């Protein structure tokens, strides 16, 4: 139906865009994905996100929503009757938001330092990444998912980064599974869900692409 049109300005390897795809799939929302060229940004992207000119952007009934965590909450509020991402209890919600913010502050930047870094910088970044992931492991505890019995907000926020783990590990020459086995088990549980499996690219695809990405970013 035209007036319920949902469009996602997307980029296949972006963990931020993957979050939105998982959320939309969890809620069974039909949408059109428009793959963007981040090195030659389209007029559509610039108009939809004039402030940051970044993906993901969700365009719903012609209105743009930017910033992945803002988009996730928007999706949860509009399509509130199916597969809620945030729990209903205010304190539980605050904990999910706190840890999503923790992931947001640290994981992308640290991961990037691991796969693009060298020497001492890379070693420091590796230690920090493991510390971060161990903290998340601690937060998961004995739960099946961060959301409890089903995937929730924090699962959706974190799981896309697992598609980049192989890239971090290979460039960094270390094993995340050896340090954080419970987190890897969690990632495998998530991947059993269609919404996650269909939204995350194969980790090897990302690794193959990382060579080209380094060239494009001007990194040796």
């Amino acid at each position, binding site marked *: 139906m035209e007036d319920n049109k949902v469009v996602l300005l997307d980029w296949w390897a972006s963990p931020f865009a993957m979050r939105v795809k998982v959320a939309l799939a969890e809620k069974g929302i039909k949408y059109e994905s428009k793959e963007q060229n981040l090195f030659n940004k389209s007029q559509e992207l610039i108009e939809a996100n004039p*402030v940051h000119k970044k993906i993901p952007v969700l365009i*719903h009934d012609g209105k743009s*929503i*930017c910033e992945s965590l*803002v988009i996730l*909450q928007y999706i949860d509020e509009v399509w509130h009757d199916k597969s809620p991402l945030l729990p209903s209890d*205010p304190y539980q*919600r605050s904990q999910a*938001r*706190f840890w999503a913010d923790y992931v947001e502050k640290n994981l992308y930047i640290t991961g990037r330092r691991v796969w693009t870094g060298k020497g001492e910088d890379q070693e420091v970044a590796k230690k920090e990444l493991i510390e971060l992931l161990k903290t998340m492991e601690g937060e998961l505890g004995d739960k099946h998912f961060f959301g409890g019995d089903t995937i929730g907000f924090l699962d959706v926020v974190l799981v896309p980064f697992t598609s980049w783990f192989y890239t971090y590990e290979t460039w960094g020459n270390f094993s995340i599974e050896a340090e954080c086995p419970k987190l890897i088990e969690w990632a495998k549980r998530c991947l059993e869900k269609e919404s996650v499996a269909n939204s995350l690219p194969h980790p090897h695809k990302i690794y193959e692409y990382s060579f080209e990405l380094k060239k494009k970013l001007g990194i040796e």
Partner: protein
Amino acid sequence: MAEEVKLLKSWSSPFGLRIVWALKLKGIQYDSIDEDLSNKSPLLVQCNPVYKKIPVLIHNGKSISESLVIFEYIEDTWNHNPLLPQDPYHKATARFWVKFGDDKVLPSIWSAFIKQGKEQEDAIDEAIENLKLLEEQLKGKKFFGGEKIGLADLALGWLANLVPVFEEIIGMKIIDEERFPSLLAWMHEFSQVAIIKESWPPHDKLIIKFQALRDRHLAK
């Protein structure tokens, strides 16, 4: 049920101040404890083990950290006098600008404050670009939230409180009448609201504190 609401903050931190404003706007009774951040209390460390930072809201024994997470918790728990619009799209827009304020405006203005020479000039240029976007958002509106103060006003309120302090110390105007008439009008309007005004940290004390901070940064 007897509600127990405690706020761990500091006398000068804009992050604690924004929570004071939110609690007061909702008429929530609370006790506040001003932390000495050079000598953190066991309570602070216990309630915010991840960052050991203020503000921390303790509600009936449960702690919530990170000011933007606390905002949402307050909004979820005390539904009256909503700080966010009902409509999901307008809510998303408010959240976007809250994030923009913290992710972009604040670091750029802080940079402009603690640097000197060419570095300061560049930081000021960046701050101005960010402020121009806020100016555009405000056009024709009394507050970012419209007729009433909303979350974006509380999140950006530090501009009204601290930018005059910074400008006085560095001897330069960043938010000038020519470029930012709406922003200046908003800063004035916001500062005059009784609840906001009565919580303002004393100007002279702020000058001393931030002058010392700038001196320390320049000495590095």
